[in-house]
């Protein structure tokens, strides 16, 4: 796949803008998934995925083709996600719900500041609960957990994406797992019907 991607990159750099569409097609699913898990909101995930592809395009001449394109674009996207999370933190309220958005958005918005009562957790679908628990993680743990468990990337690649030493990535994954364990001790999934 890298060979095809590098070929398309060369075409783009030579002025064939249309060749970029194929690159977007190849990576959009993975990129969107990571953004969605990081942000917990479809509209924001779409927004950031588009922004990441735009930035990658503008900076394409700086991409070192000896490296993996996926690592590079994941790095652009995770940085954008982290910026977005930090910006939106202080002033999100339940009344920010917009009709037509799905339930996940509401949970992810209240998640950072409020812990839901057990009765409400019990009513959640598994996927809803999953996103709720991810959204409660501090962003430095959230990014490693998402890249490891949602994208199933090797630790070495996570370290390149986040530009962190391998040891730091390991520590953050350990702490992220511990944080999830503590968060979920209130109502472990093993006590919920589905598992």
């Amino acid at each position, binding site marked *: 796949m890298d060979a095809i991607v590098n070929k398309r990159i060369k075409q783009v*750099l*030579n002025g064939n803008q249309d060749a970029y569409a194929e690159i977007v097609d190849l990576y959009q*699913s993975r990129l969107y998934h990571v953004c969605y898990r990081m942000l917990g909101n479809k509209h924001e995930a779409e927004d950031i995925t588009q922004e990441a592809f735009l930035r990658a*395009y*503008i900076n394409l*001449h700086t991409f070192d083709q000896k490296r993996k394109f996926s690592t590079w674009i994941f790095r652009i996207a995770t940085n954008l996600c982290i910026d977005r999370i930090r910006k939106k933190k202080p002033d999100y309220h339940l009344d920010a719900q917009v009709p037509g958005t799905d339930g996940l958005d509401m949970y992810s918005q209240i998640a950072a500041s409020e812990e839901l009562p057990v009765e409400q957790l019990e009513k959640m679908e598994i996927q809803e609960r*999953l996103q709720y628990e991810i959204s409660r993680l501090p962003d430095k743990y959230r990014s490693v957990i998402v890249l490891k468990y949602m994208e199933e990337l090797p630790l070495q690649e996570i370290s390149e994406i986040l530009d962190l030493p391998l040891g730091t990535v390991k520590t953050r994954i350990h702490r992220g797992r511990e944080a999830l364990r503590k968060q*979920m001790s209130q109502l472990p999934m093993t006590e919920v019907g589905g598992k």
Partner: protein
Amino acid sequence: MGACHEKYMDYMHAYLDGDIPPEHEQELKQHLKSCDACQAHMHELSDVVAFMKSAQPVTPPPNLTSHVMASLPKRTVSAGPQS
């Protein structure tokens, strides 16, 4: 939990990352047989991992590529060395 448990906590995470030397793995398994607290902890961590892995893929909106393509600057100002 005491310092002894902290050591096994590290082993547990190394184990979950597939990053544990065989002698530590042996030691961990022996310890878990005799220590209920650590065994419970290990179970909880394994449950967390299984739960995270149950995440279903989400589908990007169908028109994402065309939106991206429409957002790109025109070729004349596009980046990179022009040939």
